[in-house]
């Protein structure tokens, strides 16, 4: 019984403080500036406790946008391994979901879910900051059910 209680509080805390890391893997940085705009006063993500961390060691949510180029793929895989376990991967923008407009480029290595398991997809080219916020919140709810 006590273990259930600890698990419930940990889950609740995990939902309340999502530290995220943003990595652009070869898109047109339209999604990156919209992801940066999520920090500014109009769409502030810090009211949900979110902090933009630069370090894969400290993050829980990986916000990855852009169709993965061949050159950044090894780095992407290493960053995925470096993030500690209870983590959620969010693919932002249509490039990350389906290689988008660069589907037949010779230097693109395929959508994100070919490289790592993706939990939440946020469509849009680029998705508006409200859509990104909604995606992050959905990722948190999904996180709670996953560990229920």
């Amino acid at each position: 019984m006590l273990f259930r209680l600890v698990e419930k509080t940990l889950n609740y805390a995990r939902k309340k403080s999502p530290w995220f890391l943003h990595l652009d893997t070869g898109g047109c940085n339209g999604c990156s500036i919209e992801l940066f705009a999520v920090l500014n006063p109009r769409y502030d993500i810090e009211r949900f406790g979110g902090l933009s961390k630069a370090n894969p060691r400290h993050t829980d949510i990986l916000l990855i946008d852009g169709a993965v180029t061949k050159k950044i793929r090894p780095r992407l895989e290493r960053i995925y391994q470096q993030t500690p376990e209870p983590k959620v991967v969010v693919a932002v923008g249509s490039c990350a979901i389906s290689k988008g407009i660069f589907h037949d480029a010779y230097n693109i290595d395929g959508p994100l879910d070919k490289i790592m398991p993706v939990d939440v997809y946020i469509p849009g080219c680029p998705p508006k900051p409200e859509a990104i916020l909604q995606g992050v919140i959905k990722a948190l709810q999904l996180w709670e059910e996953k560990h229920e």
Partner: protein
Amino acid sequence: MIESLVRVLVYPGVGFIVFFSFLYSGIFRKISARMQHRIGPPIWQPFFDILKLLGKEDIKPEQAKIGYTFWPFVAMISIITAGLLTPIAGVVPLGNSDIVVLIYFLVFGSLCLYLSGFSSSNPFAVIGSVRGIIQMIGYEFPFVVSVAVAALASGRLLLFPAAVNMYQISNGWLCLSFPFAAAAFFVSVLAKVEIPPFHIPEAHQEIVSGYYTEYTGKKLAMILIAHMVKLFVLIALGIALFFGGSLDILTFIAKGLVLVFVVSFFRVILARFRIDHALKFCWVFGFVGMIDLFRVLLGF
């Protein structure tokens, strides 16, 4: 026996210190967010952060040296004991204490934090720790000068913080009679807790997260707790030494909130120093504090 145990463990002791340091750091983040036109996180956000970190997986890089898991724990413990030695609302949890022991624990705590950076042998952590130690050389000088001024001003050579507390209650705030020493103290507090403009060791723009780059899970939680408690301890010390002491708990919390507001004001308006600017700035304020030291010695 139980009464002193409660005093150490619960009321002005560990429980109270840790709870209020989380609360102060939450208010600190909320106020600075508010000043940036943002809504900012709820005040009890640090509780969630630390709880979440406890539930995270612990990763230990294989290049890490022996002290990797040891130093953060020592840092947290030494800073909490420093907290136990400061007079909170007139009561010193561990009985009467000498200021030198308090300074020792604070310095040892910060040193352990930087040693944990060295032991994680990550290039960014090493550079972050080197910067931390350089900055430590900078802010120790004004800190010790201002504490000496407070000691001599209260008329006793061997300083007991509780005694200074009483002295201030009887005849007025020390910071009014010795403004330079108070300014030096405040600058050293900013530098000690690495609040902008002194957040150089963990400047995440240049060196990813400074000395705690490699830490995750419980060890990172310990480091963050050490940070928050350090802020609370220095605020409590500031109240006891310069800002008019406090007898009952309400004035203590009120003055603490005012100090947190002033500190977060500095966080919002100042950009980051480079390490050599920070060193020069601290030493200038050290000499400013010396003026007050001479005034106290010569007795006018």
